[in-house]
């Protein structure tokens, strides 16, 4: 008996300890699950906000400090250690690409696809609003609208990929690891068609305008503007001339099938016209070309069709203030090439190109210029107000903002466009809201004029629309004179160049026009300024830096990692 009792005690002992060995599981969960997100109206709204937050702001596009302008003939970036310099040396490839956006835009597309699976009116829990029929109805409509905002954004992200890579893998559902083996690039035509259809669909369902508190959301105008730009690119030379990559096995990835170019140009023109003709939007050119880029409300608002919103910050000023202003770092400095592109206004009816061989031009190069020069570029002796100092800028040799000060501008110019003058950086107290404009009315006018000139040269609308841009209040340049199709083409291109300078058009325009080898491959110039008197200077342009452009750079290389893993993806030509 005693033995048995002991056994009982021992077994009991073991039982007690075994029972205490509880099941393993998480004791606390602090993370949201997808179910928790999708059942909550504000959480779903937050998901959509996350989709907007993927919009890139072009102010610090490359390496955290440089603009895309510095990869073109528009500008030279001052910081020699910025990764943008690799771009100018041609030192970019499928492994190292300072301007790579493949990862980010596919992430954004995945977010959109997840959102579209999540945000269905039947899924989102609106019980809290059911007590008030009006609010409930509004909420239902909002959820329905969100889907089109998401589809517009997804289309936009796809377009950003298409313009860099050509045909890309299209998907409307979130991909998983299982999709790697079957992944393939869609043809360029499929890709463009997809984005175009999505724009149509979004345009049908998005509102023309939003109430003040919702300003910044995608509108019908934004969807149509995206379509305008997309079709303009689709009609341009690059996507219709696969011969630059002769021998490439998959021309369908980089070019549209041979077809009626005129029809493509017409489609582009029609798409632009659709934006221009869109009633009820209040679209109008801003009367102030300077503040258009530093504020996004008030008089600027009617011109802005879609913009990447931002909080207040002075990071852009820290990077781009002239070196002589407290905490300035020179940043993006416009080249002489860009400065030369601004016309000289001879009279109210006549303007001529700037010409260094013209002694009058060369002696006072900044006199009587297209006002957009002074509004976009800080030239020597023009005044600049920053960090509590308002004085003429001295980019002449030996000046407060000129060589040989370390990190002073190498071109002789500083950036004015976008820069919030008056920001006080001294105590890091000043800041300003920087909105990155993706679509504005002036571009649409120029899109329309360009497309029209290609299939219907001489159409009166060409001059009308170019002149709208040239004669904006505060710019008031003489109207565009008549000319041959080719002359008008050059004029429109130059108009685009000066009107849209630094707005991340040049890199893509020169590619789609296939002028990039001559333009992006050419050396950029700066100007040496010598002070000869109290307010007198002499100017001598010089070759600043050779640039590299090879044919393969028409398109970006698909990242090597993706190619190595997803064997179905094809690299772009010549990379």
């Amino acid at each position, binding site marked *: 008996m005693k033995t048995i009792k002991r056994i009982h005690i021992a077994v009991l002992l073991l039982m007690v300890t075994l029972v205490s060995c509880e099941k393993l*599981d998480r004791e606390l969960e602090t993370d949201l699950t997808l179910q928790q997100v999708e059942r909550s109206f504000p959480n779903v709204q937050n998901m959509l906000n996350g989709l907007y937050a993927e919009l890139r702001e072009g102010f610090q596009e490359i390496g955290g400090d440089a603009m895309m302008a510095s990869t073109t003939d528009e500008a030279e970036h001052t910081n020699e250690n910025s990764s943008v310099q690799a771009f100018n040396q041609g030192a970019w490839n499928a492994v190292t690409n300072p301007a790579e956006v493949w990862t980010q835009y596919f992430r954004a597309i995945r977010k959109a696809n997840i959102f579209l699976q999540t945000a269905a009116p039947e899924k989102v829990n609106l019980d809290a609003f059911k007590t008030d029929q009006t609010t409930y109805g509004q909420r239902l409509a909002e959820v329905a609208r969100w889907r089109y905002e998401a589809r517009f954004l997804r289309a936009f992200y796809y377009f950003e990929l298409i313009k860099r890579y050509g045909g890309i893998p299209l998907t409307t559902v979130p991909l998983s690891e299982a999709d790697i083996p079957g992944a393939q690039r869609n043809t360029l035509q499929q890709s463009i068609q997809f984005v175009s259809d999505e724009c149509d669909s979004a345009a049908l369902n998005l509102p023309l305008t939003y109430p003040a508190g919702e300003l910044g959301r995608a509108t019908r105008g934004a969807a149509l503007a995206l379509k305008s730009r997309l079709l303009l690119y689709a009609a341009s030379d690059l996507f219709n001339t696969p011969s630059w990559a002769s021998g490439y096995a998959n021309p369908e990835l980089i070019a549209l099938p041979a077809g009626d170019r005129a029809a493509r140009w017409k489609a582009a023109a029609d798409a632009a016209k659709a934006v221009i003709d869109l009633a009820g939007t209040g679209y109008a050119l801003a009367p102030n070309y300077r503040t258009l880029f530093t504020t996004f409300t008030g008089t600027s608002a009617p011109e802005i069709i879609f913009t990447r919103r931002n909080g207040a910050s002075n990071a852009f000023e820290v990077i781009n203030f002239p070196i002589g202003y407290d905490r300035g770092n020179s940043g993006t400095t416009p080249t002489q090439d860009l400065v030369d592109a601004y016309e000289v206004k001879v009279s109210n009816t006549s303007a001529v190109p700037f010409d260094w061989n013209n002694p009058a031009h060369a002696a006072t190069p900044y006199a009587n210029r297209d006002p957009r020069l002074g509004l976009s570029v800080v030239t020597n002796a023009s005044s600049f107000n920053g960090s509590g100092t308002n004085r003429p800028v001295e980019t002449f040799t030996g000046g407060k903002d000129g060589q040989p000060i370390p990190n002073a501008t190498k071109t002789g110019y500083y950036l004015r466009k976008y820069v919030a003058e008056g920001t006080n950086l001294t105590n890091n107290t000043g800041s300003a809201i920087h909105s990155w404009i993706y679509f504005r009315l002036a571009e649409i006018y120029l899109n329309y004029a360009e497309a029209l000139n290609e299939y219907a040269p001489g159409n009166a609308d060409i001059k009308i629309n170019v002149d709208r841009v040239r004669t904006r209040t505060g710019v008031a340049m003489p109207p565009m004179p008549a000319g041959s199709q080719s002359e008008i083409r050059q004029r429109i291109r130059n108009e685009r160049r000066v009107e849209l300078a630094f707005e991340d058009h040049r890199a893509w325009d020169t590619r789609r026009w296939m002028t990039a080898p001559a333009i992006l491959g050419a050396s950029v110039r700066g100007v040496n300024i010598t002070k000869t008197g109290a307010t007198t200077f002499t100017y001598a342009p010089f070759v600043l830096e050779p640039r590299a452009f090879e044919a393969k750079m028409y398109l970006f290389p698909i990242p090597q990692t993706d190619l190595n893993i997803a064997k179905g993806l094809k690299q772009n030509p010549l990379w």
Partner: protein
Amino acid sequence: MKRKIAFYKFLPALCFLGLVTGAGAQMVVPDSVQIINLPPGTEETYIGFGKQSKRIITSAISTVKGSELRKPFTNSIANTLAGRLPGLTVNVGSNDPGSASPTLYVRGINTYGFSASPLIIIDGFLGDYTQLVPEEIEEISVLKDASATAVYGMRGANGVVQVTTKKGHRGPLVVSFTAQYGFQKPTALPKFLDAFNYANLYNEALANDGKPALYSQTDLDHYRNGTDPVFHPNVNWYKEVLRQSAPLSNYTLNFSGGDNTVRYFLLLNALGSEGLYKKFGNDFDESANPVYNRYNLRGNVDVTLSKVFSAQLNIGGSIEDKKNPGDLSTSANFGLLDRLPPNAFPVTNPNGTFGGNGTYAGNPYANLTSTGFSTSNGSVLQSSFKMNAALDMITKGLSATAAVAFNNYYEAGSNKRKSYVRSSVSKNALGDTVYTSFGQKTSLSPEESVLNQSQNYSIQGFLNYNRTFGQHGITAMAMFNTDNYNINRNYPNTDVANQSFPFKTNGGAARVTYVNKDRYIAEFSAGVTGTENFADGKRYGFFPAGSIGWIASNESFLKGSKAINFFKIRASYGLVGNEAIGGQRFMFAQRYPFGASYWFGTNNTLVNSISEGRRLNPDVTWEKEKKANIGIEANLFNHIGIVVDVFKNNRYDILASAAATLPSFLGFNGLPDLNIGTVENKGFEATLRYNTDVKKAFQVFAEATVFYAKNKITYRGEAIELNQNLYRTGWPVGQTFGLQALGLFQSDAEIATSAKPLGISIKPGDIRYQDIGGPNGVPDGVIDGNDVTAIGKSETPEWTAGFHTGASFKGFDIDLFFQGVTGVSRSLGGSRYYAFQNNGQIGKIALNRWTPQTAATADYPRLSANNNLNNYRGSSFWQRDASFIKLRNAEIGYTLATKTMTKIGLTQTRIFVNGTNLLAFDKIKEGDVEALYGYPALRTVSLGVKVQL
């Protein structure tokens, strides 16, 4: 003479001891003489969840007795382990009292995953060994191969350091008291130049930068002659705040003994260490003297309740009090001491205010005298209770044990702080002395805080079986274990971000050992462990290991051999895991965190966003390692012992980047880390011992150990690099990477034709680097991140050797322990070595700088008063071979003749002189190779006495 002094000093303690009635005389061997059992007999050693006779062990285990660890006299047990255990690499931690945190690796580094640190087990349970004192430790064993560690399952792969505390044994009461008192001195202090040399070289640096001199000849004369200590001070800041030496003391009192019913070991230990700061508390009311005291208590009691039941209670605890003037941590002060030039400002100004200026954040002297003081109070409780039941009535040899352990750790801070005014002194245009004040004087204000805490409990249940059937011996064990951390700031090997949730592991283990004829041994062991960190259904892992051994010396052809007394060959192979994988906890579940903000509306209203988080890894699992080990143990000619082990570890399933595994077009918001990494580690350990006959009066022993471990990352999932030099794969874990220096530029012509960094003006005397890569994978003439490559070795040594020797003769004994490492590199950096950087000072290291005259022999770049971005960056130029040989400890003792002592009731009295870190041989002349930054390494000389009754 010395004996008298020592006795006098400890008289109060002896009086106390006198009150305790002594027990019968007993033969005690001085603990400085190591007795090595030849041949291994029935002596048992601790293995995972049990004990085993050394003779039949078939796994790789090395052990050290607690008494050995007493000999390096330091304030941290962790630092004493260096070199003591073959296979245990110790990167010695700071000597700052109470802040030692050495890193331990068993058989080198086996993973680049989150943790390569071994599991620490105290008396069978998870615990913290750093608070223990050598006097309460019976043995520390390092479990190295699969056969030894598989029972720890998912936690064993990094090896196990198992600490066993002392127990009472059947026998009369033994009371033992040890007192040890000594002084600690820095082994090396940084060597900075005085104000004259500083000023002179600063002028040179300015000239190199193309700037005019700052110090005139008059200034220099003042500095040289010390004629103007106010406006031309020359302060040795180290001397101002540090004293030459600081006392260190340790007192231990323990009782042990027992009978058939109760056996006990009781211990009280008091450790006191004062640290190197001067005793400012004596002169400044608002300061305090630096103090570090730790009191350890232990009571280990075994009770035999009946023939069937027995119980065991282990309670160990410690109270740790630390106080420092100013900050609790000394690192900020040492940082300032390293930076502050000797002529920056005087210690105090003529008007009594503290010297100071706006460039430097403080005055080190004022920081210690006038900013109050900080204290921390830590308490540790480690306790366990075991019940054993002998179940022979079920079947002979069967027993069961149930055990529970509670550990608690809490450390709170209590500070009384204030700030002070410092003033810079200058002369105005009229020649009047003008003071400019910086900072503000405040009154003492209290700050209370929790610095650290953890709380856990564990439960274990065992079934043991041990029986011999004729020639067949069988030992078997089966157990289960659950560990629960409720509060886990201190959870082993977790990253901070995830520490706020409870941790739990469940598991079990089993082992069967079969011995045939005392010749052939086979053992199978296995662990099962599960943690909630992995997905449901994927939480438990199974870790088996097998080993075999052959005691050849028991075969008839060797039996009785005079040459070979014992010879065993053994081999093991198995699978062990490592759950400390790092990364986000619960990464098997997809998270939807809040993300980047956006702005809407004319008022630009900020809105939140939620996005899918980093891609989940539903299959996330633990690291695994296949461990193979072959070893031999031999005793030859009755005096020589040899142990050799050769191992190969293959770690896999290391959580690694998915950059080369998942394409980015899938759009994941961050690729998950995947269990794809692999590391291969190979090496060996060898021990050779000699000792004289135990019976001889003159005894000598010597033991030499050497071990080597070299690992290689074989897969890391790295993103593609065009520059092959950037890949970490193929190199050891922790390999140092940096630029490859090619010496110093000698001429403008050389600079013009060489690669150099962009945006920096390079001059002769600057460091020239090798152009290895570029954006297109070929040298591009630019020195930048593309040129980084593997340089030197890692900071963890490949080779560690120990040499331990001692002798005894007629009561005298001597004991020496040397440790050496090689295959290790360290880099010099920061203010102590980089001259004038960040307004810093200049050390002797810069004396042989580059100048046009010294161009041929210079070994330091040209001086520059600017922050030179070319010269002072990670490169082979600043890297040094960090090999060393150190005399870790030396001890001479004398044991008084027993006859005399027994008359006054003492069975044994031993007096000893001990030295720790007495000698070092290395290749770094700038400082102690193990303390190139921060708090200095310490040399200790002490005197001690041990009495026993």
